């Protein structure tokens, strides 16, 4: 389990401090696929880096803590954020954004595999045995075995991404963080990779955290979702609940902005832009783009409130903190046929 408590991660820049994430709290449990959704710049990648323990200047954690709970020799141990790097590859692994360009162009794939396990005990097996296991693993993931002998540029973008997923999951880590794993890939390859991730999770019974701006991706493979906007968490719910009755206006707009095949009515993208994170507004950060907002929204920062078990919303209109109100009648989008 990973506990994220009130994490505020900032960046020092020449223009000032960019408050990439602000007061983010939630938990990541075992054996689930969690999706983190939101526009570019909402803080998802920063959050991932923080969870992974990859905090390098100019990024720093101004507030809050992240704890990784692992089981070692039958005992539960809590690892603070600074120590997480000791558990990379084994317990927790990370697939960065645009990882297609992360492979070394002058080294064959098999050598990159071998190089990356320098710290793991698996290396003790010896090169031949390791390569044999790799080939078997790749076949399980339906990757052609010739891939091992190829150079990265000989593989298409989708193929490279699949190889990287294989690399990241080879040692069966308990947590896999994937940042936009299928962005810039076409739909068929995207489906292939996402199904691969789903099957892996079913097999390994571990946890995947998927970051994506595409709600369709989340719908297909995640069990639970976290919606972020301008550095803050605005809604958390199980995926089917979220799509059935989204509470936060931003979530509604995200879902509604996607065109569907066979669907003939007008759709529109979300207008406006997120606020600057150098100087975020005091009240609700979504207020200026929100159809429900009123004057009060720009003055008070909404907190996450549990509107039904497991479903949290940070919105003054939909989930006022004071009243233990029944869920409002939800907006179900424009009238579909």
């Amino acid at each position, binding site marked *: 389990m990973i506990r994220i408590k009130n994490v505020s991660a900032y960046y020092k820049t020449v223009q000032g401090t960019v408050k990439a994430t602000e007061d983010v709290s939630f938990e990541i449990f075992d054996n689930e696929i969690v999706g983190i959704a939101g526009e570019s710049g909402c803080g998802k990648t920063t959050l991932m880096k923080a969870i992974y323990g990859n905090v390098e200047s100019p990024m720093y954690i101004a507030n809050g803590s992240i704890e990784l709970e692992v089981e070692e020799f039958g005992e539960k141990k809590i690892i603070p954020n600074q120590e997480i790097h000791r558990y990379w590859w084994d317990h927790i692994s990370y697939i960065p954004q645009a990882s297609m360009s992360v492979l070394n162009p002058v080294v064959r794939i098999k050598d990159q595999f071998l190089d990356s396990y320098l710290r793991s005990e698996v290396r003790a097996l010896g090169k031949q045995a390791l390569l044999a296991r790799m080939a078997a693993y790749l076949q399980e993931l339906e990757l052609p075995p010739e891939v091992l002998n190829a150079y990265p540029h000989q*593989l298409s973008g989708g193929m490279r991404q699949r190889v990287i997923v294989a690399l990241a999951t080879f040692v069966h880590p308990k947590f896999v963080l994937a940042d936009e794993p299928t962005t810039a890939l076409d*739909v068929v390859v995207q489906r292939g990779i*996402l199904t691969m991730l789903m099957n892996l999770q079913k097999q390994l019974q571990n946890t995947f955290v998927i970051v994506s701006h*595409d709600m369709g991706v989340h719908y*297909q493979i995640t069990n639970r979702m976290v919606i972020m906007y301008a550095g803050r968490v605005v809604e958390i719910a199980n995926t089917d609940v979220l799509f059935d009755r989204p509470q936060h206006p931003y979530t509604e707009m995200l879902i509604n*902005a*996607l065109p569907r095949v066979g669907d003939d009515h007008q759709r529109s993208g979300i207008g406006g832009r997120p606020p600057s994170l150098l100087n975020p507004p005091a009240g609700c950060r979504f207020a200026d783009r929100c159809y429900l907002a009123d004057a009060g929204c720009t003055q008070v920062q909404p907190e996450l409130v549990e509107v039904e078990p497991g479903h949290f919303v940070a919105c003054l209109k939909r989930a006022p903190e004071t009243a233990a109100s029944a869920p409002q009648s939800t907006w179900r989008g424009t009238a579909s046929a």
Partner: protein
Amino acid sequence: MNGKFLEIRNVSKIYRIGGLFRPTKIAAVDHVNLSLDQGKAQVLSLVGESGSGKTTLARMVLHLVQPTEGEIIIEGMSTGRRLNRSQMKTFRRRAQPIFQNPFESFSSRKTVDTYLFETARNILGAKTKAEAHRAVDEALVSVGLSAERVIGRYPNQFSGGELQRVSVARAMIPHPELLVADEPVSMIDASMRMNVVNLFKTLRDEFKVNILYITHDLSTAYYVSDRIAIMYRGNIVESGPSTAVLKQPAHPYTELLLDSVAKIGEKWHDVVRLPDMESKEYGYVGCKFAERCPYVRDICRKMKPPMVTTEDAREVLCFKLVNYENVEEQKVAT
């Protein structure tokens, strides 16, 4: 004149890859035929995975790449051979590009308006500063932006969606008859895509521009196109009116594409076979989709499939529609 506005005639592009000793030939585009009728403005979508040849085809239409075989004719003007300066100028007035990555489409060292003004002066032919300004203004308004929002700013001061709209504005300045948009929304957040896609609809309806829309995303293609052509490894495997193709797909690959869209409302259930290494698939003798096709038969692996024309004016490259018989091009009922 009721001829064709755009005609792609038997176009191929062949690359030799590999080392000195064992080069292989890849037909990135393989004898493709496609056309747009004169008269009403249309959006023709070219849909395919990465490596399908759609971008190569688009670049040939834009005269950025020369075809190895075949001809591309826009309003009677062939763009296949080398063009001289005045021919290039006419061409650029007629056809303009919109590229995939909005941040790469402009130099990071220049303000984006420089490209707009250059287009106004060189292609549209604006003679005075005032004329150029007016043209730029109009173009920006037509995409939902304003001159003060855009002029004087560098690319990194815009979001992906906004910058792409600036690209569209630039392309529209000379009032072209054809826009070639290569994956214009794939690098924009899913929630912002519709802004740009809706813009294409407006351009077709109000400004009467034909649009060649290259994409791998069927949902936006469905939303905006009149006609669709589906490409796989260099061949057009199905083409026709978009409602027909997408509501009743005839080619197995079209079915696969439709099924693979990450839709909200329906979850994936079937297992999908992913493509093999590019160099292998391009080398297949018969149908290039054979190894991934759920309806494959022996003949598919051995012979190239015929182009079958259906009743509802679609063209499909598949043996399934002719009962797996070895025939030449044919017309069939659907």
